[in-house]
């Protein structure tokens, strides 16, 4: 029973780490995938902006004044992004301009919005929230009529008319991101250099550079949060194994005395406990990996959270190593206590 509980407790901390890492990777991969789905070659962000900070906007008139004047620019359009929750955004789009990039949204049901208070969502979002065409979707403290459901993997989960979002957020004439499509993608580097000369201080990326930025390091505090969760994992492993092994050593005092009488050295006794600890940590890690599939299923398919968790295989070993380190730290004191046990006292233990 003690062994089972220890394995379960260790598995929970492994699952905790794998779920956090899986959520981070899942959300970032999804954002990068949606950015790639737009079909642009160059992305322009306002000066001083950062990857996930959409609070800063730029004047949309840089498109006609500078960008469209460059050679090789086949299409350029700006969108306004407004955050509605952690890693969730509503996006204002000029559909006619946007469709010039990559043909626009592929509709599963319905079609483009016609009025100012209409919304499009992707099928993932519609499925999660059980939305149907014609439903009223409340967002930004007002209802929107759902007129189209499109295939996921492009731009955003919720899309409304650009002008409406600009009006609602006091951002008339502003956009957060400008997507540029070239007639020759091989000219991307050359065009970025050319645009950078004209749009001083603006953040200009190729699509590859931009999607590469979707990493744990780009999200404020995510790395620190992950480190805190890992530290908690080590602490939980330490405490669980400490208590478990301490109890085991007390329970087995007489057995330890017997082994000593048979000639077992302190190292032999320590080795037995460390092997048992390794078993607990490895079994806990395996169970934790299995449980991370359960959390993935729960987050992706049961809870309507718009969160996405992936299985990050390279973290299996890291999470197991975290569990083993915590467990070994927890086994040191009970192990030394057992190894130093006086054989005569241990044999007399009732």
């Amino acid at each position, binding site marked *: 029973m003690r062994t089972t509980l220890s394995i379960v407790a260790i598995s929970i901390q492994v699952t905790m780490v794998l779920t956090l890492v899986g959520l981070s990777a899942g959300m970032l991969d999804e954002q990068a995938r949606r950015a790639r789905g737009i079909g642009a070659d160059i992305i322009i962000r306002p000066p001083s902006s950062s990857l996930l900070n959409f609070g800063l906007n730029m004047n949309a008139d840089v498109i006609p004044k500078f960008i469209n004047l460059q050679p090789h620019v086949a299409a350029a359009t700006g969108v306004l992004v407004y955050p509605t929750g952690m890693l969730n955004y509503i996006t204002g789009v000029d559909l006619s301009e946007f469709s010039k990039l990559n043909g626009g949204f592929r509709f599963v049901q319905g079609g483009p919005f016609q009025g100012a208070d209409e919304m499009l969502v992707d099928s993932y979002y519609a499925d999660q929230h059980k939305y149907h065409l014609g439903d009223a979707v409340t967002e930004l403290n007002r209802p929107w009529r759902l007129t189209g459901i499109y295939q996921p993997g492009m731009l955003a989960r919720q899309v409304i008319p650009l002008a409406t979002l600009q009006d609602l957020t006091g951002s008339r004439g502003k956009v957060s991101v400008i997507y540029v499509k070239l007639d020759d993608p091989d000219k991307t580097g050359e065009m970025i250099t050319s645009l950078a000369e004209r749009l001083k201080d603006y953040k200009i990326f190729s699509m590859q550079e931009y999607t590469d930025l979707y990493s744990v390091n780009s999200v404020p505090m995510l790395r620190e949060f992950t480190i805190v969760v890992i530290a908690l994992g080590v602490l939980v492993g330490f405490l669980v194994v400490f208590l478990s092994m301490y109890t085991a050593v007390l329970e087995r005092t007489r*057995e330890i005395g*017997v082994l000593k009488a*048979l*000639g*077992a*050295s302190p190292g032999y006794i320590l080795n037995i406990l460390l092997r048992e600890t390794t078993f607990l940590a490895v079994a806990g890690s395996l169970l934790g990996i299995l449980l991370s599939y359960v959390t993935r299923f729960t987050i992706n398919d049961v809870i309507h959270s718009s969160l996405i968790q992936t299985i990050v295989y390279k973290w299996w070993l890291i999470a197991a190593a975290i569990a083993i380190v915590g467990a070994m730290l927890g086994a040191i004191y009970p192990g030394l206590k057992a190894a130093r046990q006086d*054989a*005569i006292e241990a044999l007399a233990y009732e």
Partner: protein
Amino acid sequence: MSDAPIISIRDLRKTYHAGEVDVHALRGVDLDVERGEFVSIVGPSGSGKSTLFHIVGGLTPPTAGSIQLDGHDLLGLTDAQRTELRKTTVGFVFQKYNLLPTLTARDNIEIARHIAHKDGPPDPKFAEILKLLGLTSRLDHKPRALSGGEQQRVAIARAIVNHPAILLADEPTGNLDTENSTAVLELLRDLNQRLGQTILMITHNPEAAAYGHRTVRMRDGRIE
């Protein structure tokens, strides 16, 4: 084989410090045990027989005096050297059997070989001993499935599997009924007679003590 005693004890003293009080458990013991001898040690509680047992078994060092055990001077041994001595030179049989409850009878015996780095198939002679002990059909049972007599026979097998120079038995029949006590004592006598196993046995029971070649009486930390 040398004619020197396998155990030679002179003026052996052991003092325990219990808080601020010194307890003199042994106050100058002299004892010789010849190779192949079966010696019973009797005495009331507190007479020092258990302390003598622990010192001869290398479980605790003496305070003063000299003790030679199969050529080893126990007075100067470090903890590690005493551990080594327990692996190879002495075998213990306890009153409460002290088998490891999660292991089968076979594994309880095997672990003594493992600790002594004697992994591999046991020698054929040991199979004979198992037959002598009547354990052949009970080896795959865990202690809880064995009777007290069977458990003590497994403990005896464990104690002699590494062919120790001396078998130390501390009240080996203390937890057994008369029938099983007799069986265990006869086994010890058999081991002594057939294999020449030197045995030092502590007991309260005069009938049990009579199985030895001679009986040594202890009182107040001395041999009478």
